């Protein structure tokens, strides 16, 4: 609505001497109300389409996770089974596959678990000391503390020598190890390419290439590279006397291979965004610091890093959500094997779905959604906010 419209609004009428009739007053009021709602009315169709496309499948898949599919004469039938599909994953026959084999942690495991719990308690206490305590904030923080502690409990139990990680822990490993390494490598390369070095434009393109390749292509590439008996590195393996050993048939070797492939593919994403962030930072504080005699490390730590923190935190959030969906690499490189060693949650859902156990598959997908939402929301509310505030 233009300014002219507003000034000519409903009040002055005719000469302005006669009082407006009740009818015209109520019509004007109605028009004003409709005017206020116009934005909503115009947006509504779009919103409905979006809701239909995103919320509807979400609800349907939730329903599917509570049913069992059976083929019968003339088609199929869906039988409502309540939470049976979830029970199968958490306490039933698939719980070892999903959660892992739990065993008593090593002393180191207990130490790690203890540290995680203590850190959560400290964070809670710090929050209560700030004096800005709200009900929502308290509940949220307690839920996060419990969730993080439960996650740590699961990780230390399944990663103990006698245990075995299930698809949940394997996915968490892919996500956290992958993102940390990708960020550090991406930052390193970005710092190099932000320098005025000869050939930096060329290297920028080269560093970006892995991201352009389809994940299935990357997976095949790494499948060849990790083949010690036929692959391109055969002469090297042979010279080292390792031509007859295969590291992708060892659970940790295979997980490492998948993580290396994922890191190779996604470091460029971190790199390109961080290059942009580094190049857009203002020069004055850096120059001032140089004049004041600050070392390169001090400049990086005190000026550059805080300046790119907001971008970094968003970058990590995007990768975090994306990384949970990893499926192509383990599926093509190792088929989730050896055993179930490299199986991610998405691949777990996919293998169940392949035999058309769509209820079981939807249950895994919903558990994944739950985990991603929990970690994403916790990260966005607690860590990212703090990083941005500090910056």
């Amino acid at each position: 609505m233009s300014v002219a419209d507003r000034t000519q609004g409903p009040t002055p009428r005719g000469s302005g001497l006669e009082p407006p009739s009740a009818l015209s007053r109520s019509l004007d009021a109605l028009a004003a109300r409709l005017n206020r709602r116009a934005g909503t009315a115009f947006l509504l169709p779009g919103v409905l389409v979006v809701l239909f496309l995103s919320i509807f499948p979400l609800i349907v898949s939730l329903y599917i996770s509570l049913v069992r599919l059976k083929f019968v004469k003339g088609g199929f039938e869906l039988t409502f089974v309540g939470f049976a599909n979830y029970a199968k994953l958490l306490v039933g026959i698939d719980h070892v596959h999903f959660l892992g084999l739990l065993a008593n942690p090593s002393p180191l495991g207990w130490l790690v678990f203890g540290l995680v719990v203590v850190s959560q308690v400290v964070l809670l206490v710090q929050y209560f000391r700030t004096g800005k305590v709200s009900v929502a904030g308290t509940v949220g923080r307690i839920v996060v503390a419990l969730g993080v502690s439960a996650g740590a409990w699961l990780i230390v139990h399944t990663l103990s020598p006698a245990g075995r990680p299930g698809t949940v822990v394997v996915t968490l490993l892919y996500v956290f190890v992958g993102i940390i390494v990708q960020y550090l490598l991406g930052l390193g390369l970005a710092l190099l390419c932000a320098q005025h070095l000869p050939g930096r434009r060329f290297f920028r393109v080269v560093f970006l290439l892995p991201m352009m390749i389809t994940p299935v292509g990357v997976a095949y590439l790494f499948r060849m590279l990790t083949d010690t008996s036929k692959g391109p590195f055969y002469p090297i393996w042979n010279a080292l006397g390792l031509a007859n050993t295969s590291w992708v048939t060892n659970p940790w070797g295979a997980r490492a291979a998948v993580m290396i492939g994922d890191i190779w593919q996604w470091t460029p994403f971190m790199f390109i965004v961080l290059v942009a962030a580094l190049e857009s930072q203002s020069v004055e504080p850096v120059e001032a610091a140089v004049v004041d005699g600050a070392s390169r490390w001090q400049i990086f730590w005190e000026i550059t890093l805080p300046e790119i923190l907001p971008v970094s935190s968003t970058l990590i959030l995007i990768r975090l959500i994306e990384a949970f969906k990893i499926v192509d690499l383990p599926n093509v490189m190792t088929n989730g094997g050896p055993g179930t060693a490299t199986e991610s949650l998405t691949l777990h859902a996919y293998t169940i779905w392949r035999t058309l156990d769509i209820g079981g598959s939807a249950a895994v997908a919903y558990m994944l959604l739950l985990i991603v939402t929990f970690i994403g929301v916790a990260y966005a509310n607690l860590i990212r906010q703090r990083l941005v505030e500090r910056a």
Partner: protein
Amino acid sequence: MKRHLALTLGLLVALSLIVTACGGATASPAPTSPPQVVEVTRIVAGTPETVTLQVTAPPPTEAPMKYAGVTVNVLTFTGPQIAEPLQRHGPEFEALTGAHINVNIVPFSDLYQKALTDFATGTNSYDIIVFDPQWMGDYVSAGYLEDLTDKVKSDKTIEWDDIGPFFRDFSATYEGRVYTIPLDGDFHMIYYRTDLIKEPPKTWDDYVALATQFQGKDLNGDGKADYGSCIAMARSQQSYWFISSVASAFIQSQGTGQGAFFTTDTMQPLVNNDAFGKALDIYKTISTLGPPDQLNLNVGDTRGLFTSGRCALSMDWGDIGPLATDKTTSTVIDKVGAAVLPGSKEVLDRATGKLVPCDEKTCPYAIDGVNHAPFAAFGGWSGAINKASKDEVKAAAFDFLAYVSAPAQSNVDVTIGKTGFNPYRTSQFLNREQWVESGMSAVAASNYLGAIEASLNSPNMVLDLRIPQNQYYQQTVLDTAIAQFLAGELDKAATMKQIEDGWNAKTDELGRDTQLAAYKATLGVTK
């Protein structure tokens, strides 16, 4: 009032846009097919001549071909085997009848659900599925497949009676009706290098001994250490059949009707006993007597290794026989022997779950005291027709499958390694000339066909599992547990327990009585 008008008009425009957008999709014209000009290389049966045909679709004024304008969509797996002969015969069939054959491919592990989802959702984008007849139960009970019983008997091209009785009456038939046309015959056998091994292994212990003997030796003269045995053990591939091939000799000894997967009284899985345990031990040992990355190899990989002379032994379907005679890839031409699956001198006593020595009573079909139980793994790629397709498409689809299966085509296809088609017709076993023409020596042909015939004629042959959702039993539960066992994630006892629990849970979920009835029906016990 201008504002009211504008608001109303705006809302109307928005509404009409939505209506148009929603209804617009139905108004779009259907795509028209391009003119058909095909150039094909056609191998004529019996005579190895190559004919090049250039076919232009006839103008509408001329007398139309039988199926002019009909498109038949075929679904099968990535291949290149199986898909290759379909893609090759498609243009030939089009030249003869005018029907356009469109072959769609998906990875093997996706095939089962891809076709089933397509039919169940009523999408019906496929008219023919070339698939594992083992899965037929799920398709037939839901009513998705066309009953072909009368057609196969009246059709002249297909020569139904020439198809081996096992493939005709078991693989193609479900509850007494024919639903598929066999295109391939499948059996697990072992292959051995005749230049290294004089007598094929009789028992699995012999197999392990031979594999141990040749592991790490140079077998093809290239100076590199080679492997005792190459078996595809990758997860989510076609590997889960191999453990059953080892276990069958220990589990089934009283003839085909005994079954090797479940007991026929209470449907208890036969996987948690000394016999299956022994098979697991042997399988694990074999897994260490091969390429270092054997746990990550599929059948394509192991076939390549075997035909390049890097393995002394292998277990596979019939494919290695013709592949080994392929002059372009094989370095072991005339050095390959095939034999029926090794057996065992001990078999399972189902009452106690223990192994007992073979005697006349425990192993009535034993040969020289060794119980062999050749496993008809998979059952052979077969073509089925979607019941929901249009009648003329179904007719064209049937004629195409009959054309591919007809002796004129299939008797040549089975001698070509890359087709993935293995012999399944009586004429293919009797007429050895075509095998010799394809490059196999007379001795090799007789040895190869003899091994398949021995398996096919065995009264103690093991039938593959064909009960509702057998795909879950095998590809999800069995495949995962075996992969975990080989990778060291599970020990022997835990592996057996996991398979038993997984199978029992599924059986209870689907109804033990129903599953038992289906299992007994496939074994022919109730006949």
